């Protein structure tokens, strides 16, 4: 039917395709759709490949063969037997035979040899008697595919060296504090620091962020000029580089509020992990909280805005006050989405380095943080410090620390996602 037949007086206003042109037109539209679909798919593939490369790279560095060489041959001391096969008494005998009086006194003072178990004694023999040393490390891929070549090379250069597998990420690595020797260094202090700073940051930023979002969405009148200014500023703050927050944190929390952030005001004295300056976990947490606050507020506002107005009306219509409506109807409905914003924001805080360098995270620290007033370090800073060292082993433990950081992040995220799913399922929906 053409336009004329409907109303002959009406002027023609363009033509819609008719006959074979319809098929052509549809084919073209479908093709465009297919092309876009391909582009979307490519985006996903690109993201996945990038992520996978990153993970493979750090995993490649964190596991693999190592070559160790002892100054003294094991067989010589044990008389041809394996250290691991010896009894506790035999191990003690070996130590007494091979070590100087001075070293023995020191070891006995730490813990009498007779009271130590076999595993510990083997370790002591390896470091004190055999003086085992790391001479070469190989990444995972090379270790797997070119084992023969590696063996050849190692025997050529270090005839007495022994090849063995080493997982750089292991329980010892996680539970040992920092050390200036890469082989002995661990990330215990940094993990604890990261957990402390993250938890405190979340504790400060989450309630403040949610409350601010509620105020801006439910209470503030957007026609009033000062509310407009507040809103614009929050939107802009989300884009401010993190280093600026670091400078702010340094100026305010470390310097001006030092009596509070150092804990002096609360009667915290030095000793333990405490410092008597403002470069504490508390300052770091406040700085990080400021950094992620705009993101939490903005995503929170989006979540609150997405709650259908009809639900609010229904609640008001029953005689609910604004507060009751927000608390009982709006928040439960918005909470899963609010949590998504929180997850993203807190993840960002876990990975941030720059502001914490300014606020004064320590680069070398061996004491566990034990409270908000401790000095601290965090995983990203630990990683950064290690990558700056000239020795290759430090680069390897940096990779291992990255694996740990990823695991910590995964753990925090998984907890938050589970929490979100729990709230989603509680929010009974269609």
């Amino acid at each position, binding site marked *: 039917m053409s336009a004329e037949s409907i109303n002959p007086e009406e002027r023609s206003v363009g033509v819609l395709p008719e006959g074979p042109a319809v098929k052509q037109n549809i084919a073209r539209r479908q093709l465009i759709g297919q092309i876009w679909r391909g582009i979307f798919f490519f985006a996903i593939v690109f993201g996945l490949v990038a992520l996978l490369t990153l993970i493979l790279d750090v995993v490649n560095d964190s596991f693999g063969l190592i070559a160790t060489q002892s100054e003294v041959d094991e067989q010589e001391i044990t008389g041809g037997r394996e250290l691991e096969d010896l009894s506790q008494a035999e191990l003690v005998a070996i130590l007494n035979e091979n070590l100087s009086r001075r070293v023995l006194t020191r070891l006995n003072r730490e813990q009498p040899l007779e009271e130590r178990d076999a595993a510990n004694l083997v370790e002591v023999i390896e470091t004190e008697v055999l003086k085992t040393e790391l001479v070469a490390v190989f990444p995972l891929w090379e270790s797997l595919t070119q084992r023969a070549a590696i063996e050849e090379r190692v025997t050529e250069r270090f005839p007495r060296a022994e090849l063995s597998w080493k997982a750089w990420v292991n329980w010892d690595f996680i539970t040992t504090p920092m050390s200036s020797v890469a082989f002995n260094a661990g990330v215990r202090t940094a993990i604890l620091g990261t957990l402390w700073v993250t938890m405190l940051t979340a504790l400060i930023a989450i309630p403040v962020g949610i409350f601010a979002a509620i105020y801006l969405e439910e209470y503030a009148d957007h026609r009033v000029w000062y509310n407009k200014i507040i809103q614009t500023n929050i939107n802009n703050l989300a884009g401010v580089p993190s280093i600026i927050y670091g400078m702010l944190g340094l100026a305010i929390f470390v310097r001006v509020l030092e009596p509070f952030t150092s804990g002096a005001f609360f009667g915290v004295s030095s000793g333990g992990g405490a410092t008597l300056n403002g470069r504490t976990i508390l300052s770091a947490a406040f700085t990080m909280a400021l950094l992620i606050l705009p993101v939490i507020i903005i995503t929170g506002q989006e979540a609150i805005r997405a709650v259908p107005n009809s639900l609010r009306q229904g609640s008001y219509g029953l*005689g609910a006050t604004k507060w009751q409506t927000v608390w009982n109807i709006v928040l439960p409905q918005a909470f899963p989405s609010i949590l998504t914003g929180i997850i993203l924001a807190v993840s960002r805080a876990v990975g941030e380095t720059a502001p914490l360098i300014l606020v004064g995270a320590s680069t070398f620290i061996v004491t566990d943080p034990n409270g908000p007033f401790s000095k601290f370090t965090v995983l990203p800073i630990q990683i950064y410090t290690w990558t700056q060292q000239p020795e290759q082993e430090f680069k390897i433990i940096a990779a291992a620390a990255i694996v740990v950081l990823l695991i910590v992040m995964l753990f925090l995220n998984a907890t938050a996602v589970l929490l979100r799913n729990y709230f989603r399922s509680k929010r*009974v929906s269609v």
Partner: protein
Amino acid sequence: MTTYDIDSSNANAIEARDMSIYYGAFRAVNKVSLAIEKNKITAFIGPSGCGKSTVLRSFNRMNDLVPTARTEGEIVFRGKNLYAPDVDPVEVRRRIGMVFQKANPFPKSIYENIAYGPRINGWRGTKAEMDELVERSLRGAALWDDVKDKLQQSGLSLSGGQQQRLCIARALATQPEVILMDEPCSALDPISTLKIEELMFELRQRYTIIIVTHNMQQASRASDYTAFFLMNSERAGELVEYGTTEQIFHNPKDERTEQYISGRFG
């Protein structure tokens, strides 16, 4: 403007006196005065945009939620002007409940949907008493038999008509005197619509009902009184005629009413 007082010997549930309602500078409703009789169903009819919903919402101050809205005139309820400065809209809405065009059950269980109203209004009692209140409200909305086995299921799992009756049950639970309904059946099939109409007849014994409808048949068969609204030349809604449904539909005094109900304009 005359006040259409239907029958002064009968107590009025609620009465509008010279109500004008503005959205910003726009006058949406112009000097509407009418008295709603107790325990009767009053229907508001009129073409789209003539201010029926606006007038209805002014009866329980839901218009206060629109930041630009402003009112002149009085709504008298229990001998008091609801727009007097010392009246809190929160209290008004407990006494004058509302059912919306689109069913809007809360994303909670059926039970919680009903219990919500009493709880937020400071209800106190035992779990057993709440169970009874929930049952009574659901029975009141003719929904009990449909849902008695699944009170813990989501209110959103019900059909459209059931959801609307859930919203009515929810309104009943706060023991209102007047129930405002804004096109409650516009999204429902004829069977569900009939069910709601039957329900309205039941409810009439204890509540006063005001209903906005575009369905002339519904107005004529389900209401006792009918008010006809129309926009004036400045697009402000005005009350044209108000009387018993019988009179409005069979013997309209105003020519425009007659044209509208016979489907000749609007």
